[in-house]
């Protein structure tokens, strides 16, 4: 779609009450008219309603420095900063080599310090995520072929600027650097930068470039709104390998290190890499099970093996039913799924009947299969935790547990024999990212569904007014990682505590672990001489599993209003529940 179409479309978007809101600000030193409209349209496709603010032409610094500026009044959730190097460096962009080496160093450092200062002011005055484009390294130098032999030449200088910017963002949960250089190297500098547009209207990014850039910017909006996808559902024939195994046989399908077999192998490598980063893989294929599984088990060049798939639906059922079953089996929402299938009819079918599932467009030419993955922004996270890295293995462990369940018939002995061990830990620096992530991602067993960023948790801890704990669970089949969080606001002066957040990942539901965690909280309260614990259940579309939990623990309903129920527990009146769990 062209920029003008985005602009027209953005005017017609109507907010639906089920949509999430996001406020996006754009600051720049050149004309970026249109970017707000594109982002609004793209957000809308993900069920997000965006309000946007764009700084006046080249007034980003004024906006940042003036604490009562429109930027701050706007209260952005995310701020994108786009700086053009020519506008930033002025004449020194052209006459860089009039400066001696020391002056060049100073010049780059001064420019960096200025930007760094502005970023710091933004950080202090907003809670927004701040995304800064790095500077485009010039592709021309008057020094020509010996540019890179110059001491602190212009390219080195700009790279140094970018390195410092990147360094500033490491260990900073608010600041992210968008790599303009790799963006341009992928889609082409001459596509992004159109001289005529630049001279006519100081548009340093062409209309088509703005469209592409915005789709990359969605990579930040997705984790911000906690809508990161979790699982890729894959077709087999002509998707993971070339040809149809049922017709051509295992020896004739295209999969291998040469020519037309290679894109499939590389595509699988890209998928495996995502799996190793925590993305769940599943199969949804119309095939004879024996034919397909033979390829998966025995084909020499198959990169993805049986144990990489959390679910394999290889049958003659329709694809919709299979997808629904996969979601149910893995206990994740349809909106966490991405569907990849070479067959256009299948894709349209899924789009039509399961609109929550993200269905990817697939190029006709298999050579472009690896880039399907390379262009995805929906698996982005602000922080990759150990739990993310282990998720693939955890889901494989889950398969083993399911088989064990079949062998043992009653739940009690099943739970006992699982030998569940729960470690209840005080939240600290190491666990904050995972705790924030759980508040954003947990929908089912979640009493209040409050979403927190890392900074919020950090602030709670620093205030000293909160008890924040998380749980690490393992059983005889493996480690589930950190899978539960409790955040309690202490009101010691008034003699009560209030449960702000109580959640368990769906991975560990059905094991009565929640009762151990509650018991731990009650024990803490007793030790602190607290007589009452307040709790609340806020009903959402998804949190039915937690609905009766407080009552089951002995809490008494105090107030029932619309979607909210207030409970109070008189400490000492709690109900003991068998938990079959060993608390460490």
């Amino acid at each position: 779609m062209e920029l003008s179409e985005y602009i027209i479309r953005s005017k017609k978007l109507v907010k639906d009450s089920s949509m999430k809101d996001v406020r996006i600000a754009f600051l720049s030193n050149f004309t970026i008219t249109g970017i707000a409209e594109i982002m609004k349209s793209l957000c809308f496709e993900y069920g997000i309603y965006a309000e946007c603010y764009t700084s006046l032409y080249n007034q980003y610094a004024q906006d940042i420095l003036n604490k009562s500026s429109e930027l701050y009044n706007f209260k952005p959730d995310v701020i994108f900063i786009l700086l053009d190097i020519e506008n930033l460096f002025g004449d020194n962009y052209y006459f860089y080599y009039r400066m001696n080496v020391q002056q060049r160093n100073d010049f780059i450092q001064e420019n960096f310090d200025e930007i760094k200062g502005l970023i710091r002011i933004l950080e202090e005055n907003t809670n927004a995520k701040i995304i800064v484009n790095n500077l485009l390294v010039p592709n021309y130098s008057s020094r020509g072929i010996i540019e890179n032999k110059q001491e602190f030449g212009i390219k080195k200088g700009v790279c140094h600027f970018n390195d410092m910017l990147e360094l500033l963002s490491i260990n900073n949960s608010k600041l992210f650097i968008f790599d303009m250089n790799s963006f341009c190297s992928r889609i082409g500098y001459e596509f992004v930068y159109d001289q005529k547009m630049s001279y006519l209207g100081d548009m340093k990014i062409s209309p088509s470039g703005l469209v592409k850039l915005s789709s990359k910017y969605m990579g930040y909006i997705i984790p911000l709104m906690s809508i990161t996808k979790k699982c890729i559902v894959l077709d087999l024939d002509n998707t993971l390998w070339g040809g149809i195994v049922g017709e051509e046989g295992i020896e004739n399908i295209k999969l291998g290190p040469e020519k037309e077999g290679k894109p499939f192998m590389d595509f699988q490598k890209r998928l495996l890499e995502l799996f190793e980063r925590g993305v769940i893989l599943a199969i949804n294929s119309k095939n004879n099970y024996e034919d397909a599984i033979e390829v998966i088990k025995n084909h020499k060049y198959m990169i993805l093996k049986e144990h990489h798939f959390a679910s394999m639906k290889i049958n003659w059922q329709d694809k919709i039913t299979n997808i629904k079953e996969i979601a149910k089996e893995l206990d994740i929402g349809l909106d966490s799924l991405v569907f990849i299938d070479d067959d256009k009819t299948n894709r349209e079918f899924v789009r039509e009947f399961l609109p929550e599932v993200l269905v990817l467009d697939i190029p006709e030419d298999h050579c472009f299969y690896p880039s399907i993955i390379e262009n995805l922004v929906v698996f982005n996270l602000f922080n990759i935790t150990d739990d993310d890295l282990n998720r693939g293995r955890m889901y494989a462990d889950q398969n083993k547990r399911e088989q064990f369940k079949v062998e043992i018939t009653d739940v009690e002995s099943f739970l006992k024999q699982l030998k569940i061990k729960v470690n209840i830990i005080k939240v600290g620096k190491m666990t904050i990212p995972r705790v924030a992530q759980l508040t954003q991602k947990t929908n089912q067993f979640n009493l209040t569904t409050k979403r927190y960023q890392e900074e919020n948790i950090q602030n709670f801890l620093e205030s000293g007014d909160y008890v924040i704990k998380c749980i690490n669970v393992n059983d005889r089949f493996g480690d589930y990682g950190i899978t539960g969080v409790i955040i309690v606001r202490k009101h010691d002066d008034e003699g009560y505590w209030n449960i702000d957040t109580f959640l368990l990942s769906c991975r560990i539901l059905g094991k009565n672990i929640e009762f151990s965690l509650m018991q731990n909280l009650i024990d803490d309260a007793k030790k602190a001489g607290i007589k009452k614990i307040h709790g609340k259940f806020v009903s959402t579309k998804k949190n039915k599993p937690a609905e009766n939990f407080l009552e089951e623990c002995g809490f008494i309903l105090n107030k029932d209003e619309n979607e909210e129920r207030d409970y109070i527990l008189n400490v000492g009146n709690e109900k003991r529940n068998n938990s079959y769990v060993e608390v460490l």
Partner: protein
Amino acid sequence: METLKKLFAKVLDIDENDINDSSSPDSIASWDSFNGLMLVSELEKNFNVRFNINEVMSVKNFKDVKWILKKHNVTEGIDG
């Protein structure tokens, strides 16, 4: 490929019938400098041509656009 009038109407978000040879930034409110740039970008793509900056600057009205496109040997989709 879209016709010139359709493209103009789309970018400027106006009715095709409201465009005639004398249409200009003075007579069409949405034909501002930014939409002018978008017109350049989308005309170039649609008709597969590249205008030079003097051509862009010389445009005073719709008729000028037709004339420049003809200069670039575009024959289809201009009239009507």
